[in-house]
């Protein structure tokens, strides 16, 4: 059994924390949630030597221990509570050397909580390019803690960190802020209320509790009042005094070669990238490029997935004896899974673009140039990140909205983010667009599929803005709205980080979506295969007679197809579909689409899987690939003998899937992020109503 030490990795946003975490742990980590929250908790393991390994907890990046937003609260929560299982033996603090002063503020606060700290100075190369050098031994002496210089991007200095983590003699508790200038009686009282020995930790907890936590807030506020203590003034004093200590340490250890700041690449790039015309043009072109890429780059990998599943299906069909199990696996599970896994390449490409834009520092600029546009809609520039990542998946995006300090702006962002077309709609759009226009169609140099797809994403964005404008009128305002954000220096992406992110997101999609899809496919297959016994038997008997009758106008294959179609109609799924049909007829849907709407309630991408299952069960043909389903759907006729999937119906379906709230995961995340059932219910109702009315309008215009 190895010895284990717990290390918390802390630092400001943009200080290279993720790179360091990946360099230390590689793929040896797991992502879960902090208990009682939805905040992502990343824990990784790093072998320090043969006997000891470090459990490394990646804390969300923050500027101070007085949390202003929900994600900062987590960092604070882990570090304040010594009883917490994740309470670290020491904190590994990473700081950006090119901006050391501001980074060290948090370090001094963390140290004052009574945890030993070691400092990893990152981005030394960037600082050197600005003409700034640090004498590490002087800095270490002034701060009273060990300091190493590292380059997290190139994995330089990792062994130095490991040695420091092992060397307990160097783990020192230091204090930077003199708490004794605060009234001793107040400290005693606060210590009793909060049950904490460290006076700084107690006072700090009390200040946060007076704002964030309900229990004890009354007692704490009473104590503050009694001693005439103004928490805001105290925080101001605390921060300024900390900066005095930091200034001294930085001044003594710093060697500056040039006196003026050299205009670097970042500034030159920003002149263009945030330009009032070019900035917007470049942003829109980038989005356009992404959609083109999703379609053109994913063609080959999608073919491979399709071939793989076809082979799997054939193998199962041959190797298993005919019967219910064979039928279930081939037409239920594999048909449903393949309908979704095939879109993994597209989803990976989308995630890759978002991750790269975030990594190079461009996403912050998007927030900067979009803030003024978002403001009239009750959001701010930071809302653009959840909205854009909402095109990948609403669940992590809604979590990303935590960086928005203002509660009203954050709530509106949460409410409208699911209108952004997520990757789960991509399979639906792809199938439906494919039924509208042939794949090879071009508009000049552009693929028509890509253009239509972009229009769908634009539609989602416009609907999100419009809904936000409506919510702005109804959501009550609390607190002042700020938009303050660091614009980090541009950096080349770290490919290792990108690969790890893609691996995490990709496997989360396959496992998460896969579980739902297998479950839904199996249930659906059962509902579609079985029905009220009397009806099913009647059909079986009817076809048994037809098959033996001499007057054979139909081939046996055609007969089998008709039989399965009739069985589907008579099944439980068919019964549900027809029960709901009167409600969806006005928007151009039939009962089979009704079944898909039902199953899509779990997750939208199930639509394609459901269609595969329905048309596979109903048709009985061997090929399960997308084209054959498309063909079967297009061949479907309504009772008047016209094609069922007319342009009006297809457009109506697309609009419905663009707007409707059909994602259980999103609703549950909204519930936990807003701490109430009210908002997920509001969201479900408004989105579904919007979808129905829009589909009604679209269907009537085009039919």
């Amino acid at each position: 059994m190895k010895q284990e030490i717990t290390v918390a990795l802390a630092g400001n946003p943009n200080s290279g924390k993720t790179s360091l975490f990946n360099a230390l742990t590689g793929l040896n980590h797991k992502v879960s949630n902090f208990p009682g929250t939805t905040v992502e908790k990343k824990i990784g393991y790093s072998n320090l030597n043969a006997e000891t390994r470090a459990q490394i907890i990646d804390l969300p990046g923050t500027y101070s221990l007085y949390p202003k937003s929900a994600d900062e609260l987590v960092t604070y929560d882990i570090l304040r509570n010594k009883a917490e299982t994740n309470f670290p033996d020491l904190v590994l603090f990473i700081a950006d050397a090119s901006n050391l002063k501001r980074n060290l503020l948090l370090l001094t606060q963390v140290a004052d909580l009574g945890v030993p700290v070691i400092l990893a100075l990152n981005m030394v190369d960037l600082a050197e390019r600005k003409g700034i050098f640090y004498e590490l031994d002087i800095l270490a002496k002034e701060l009273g803690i060990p300091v190493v210089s590292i380059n997290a991007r190139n994995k330089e200095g990792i062994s130095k960190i490991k040695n420091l983590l092992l060397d307990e003699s160097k783990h020192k508790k230091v204090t930077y802020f003199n708490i004794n200038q605060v009234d001793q009686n107040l400290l005693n009282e606060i210590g009793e209320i909060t049950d904490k020995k460290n006076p700084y930790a107690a006072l700090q907890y009390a200040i946060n509790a007076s704002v964030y936590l309900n229990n004890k807030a009354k007692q704490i506020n009473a104590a503050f009042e009694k001693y005439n203590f103004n928490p805001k003034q105290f925080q101001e004093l605390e921060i300024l005094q900390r900066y005095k200590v930091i200034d001294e340490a930085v001044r003594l250890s710093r060697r500056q070669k040039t006196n003026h700041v050299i205009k670097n690449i970042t500034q030159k790039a920003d002149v263009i990238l945030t330009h009032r015309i070019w900035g917007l043009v470049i942003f829109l072109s980038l989005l356009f490029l992404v959609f083109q890429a999703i379609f053109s780059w994913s063609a080959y990998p999608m073919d491979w997935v399709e071939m793989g599943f076809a082979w799997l299906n054939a193998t199962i069909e041959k190797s298993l004896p005919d019967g219910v199990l064979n039928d279930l696996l081939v037409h239920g599970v594999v048909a449903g899974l393949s309908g979704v896994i095939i879109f993994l390449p597209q989803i990976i490409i989308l995630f890759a673009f978002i991750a790269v834009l975030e990594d190079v520092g461009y996403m912050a600029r998007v927030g900067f140039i979009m803030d003024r546009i978002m403001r009239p809609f009750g959001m701010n520039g930071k809302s653009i990140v959840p909205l854009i990542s909402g095109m990948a998946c609403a669940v992590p995006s809604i979590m990303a909205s935590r960086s928005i300090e203002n509660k009203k702006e954050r709530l509106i962002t949460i409410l409208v983010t699911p209108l952004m077309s997520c990757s789960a709609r991509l399979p639906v759009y792809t199938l439906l667009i494919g039924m509208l226009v042939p794949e090879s169609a071009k508009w000049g140099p552009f693929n028509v599929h890509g253009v239509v797809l972009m229009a769908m994403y634009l539609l989602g964005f416009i609907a999100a803005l419009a809904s936000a404008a409506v919510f702005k009128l109804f959501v009550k305002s609390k607190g002042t709205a700020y938009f303050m954000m660091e614009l980090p220096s541009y950096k080349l992406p770290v490919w290792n980080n990108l690969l790890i992110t893609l691996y995490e997101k990709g496997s989360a999609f396959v496992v998460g979506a896969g579980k739902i899809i297998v479950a839904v496919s199996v249930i659906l297959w059962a509902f579609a295969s079985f029905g009220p016994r009397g009806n099913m038997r009647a059909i079986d008997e009817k076809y048994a007679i037809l098959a033996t009758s001499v007057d054979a106008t139909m081939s046996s294959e055609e007969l089998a197809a008709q039989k399965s179609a009739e069985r589907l109609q008579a099944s439980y799924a068919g019964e549900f579909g027809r029960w709901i049909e009167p409600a969806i007829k006005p928007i151009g849907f039939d009962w089979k689409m009704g079944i898909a709407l039902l199953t899509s309630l779990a997750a939208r991408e199930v639509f394609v899987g459901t269609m595969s299952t329905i048309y596979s069960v109903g048709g009985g043909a061997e090929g399960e690939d997308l084209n054959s389903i498309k063909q079967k759907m297009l061949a479907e006729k309504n009772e008047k003998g016209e094609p069922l999937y007319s342009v009006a119906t297809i457009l109506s379906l697309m609009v419905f899937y663009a707007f409707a709230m059909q994602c259980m995961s999103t609703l549950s995340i909204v519930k936990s992020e807003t701490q109430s059932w009210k908002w997920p219910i509001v969201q479900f109702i408004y989105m579904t109503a919007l979808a129905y009315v829009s589909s009604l309008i679209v269907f009537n215009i085009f039919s």
Partner: protein
Amino acid sequence: MSSIIFSFFRNNLNSPKINTNKRVKLSELKFKQLATVAAVHGEELSLKLFEMGLLPGEEVELENIAPFGDPIAIRVGEYKMCLRLSDANCIDINVK
């Protein structure tokens, strides 16, 4: 006791350094002008800005203006941040 220290500190904070420079608001800063932060008005705003390193005495420079004239991006000491004009309006600076 504590309140005495606070009031002492606040006076210290708000008293302008002796200089003959022009005192304007950060929102009035022009391109390529250098300035130092003199004071931040508003309790909550000043806390937030202090945490982000925008302190009295720190050097600031206007670097970019967003497409619709607001927000602005400034260099604060050694890094770059952005803020809205309405907040920049609460920050007094001395133009060098």
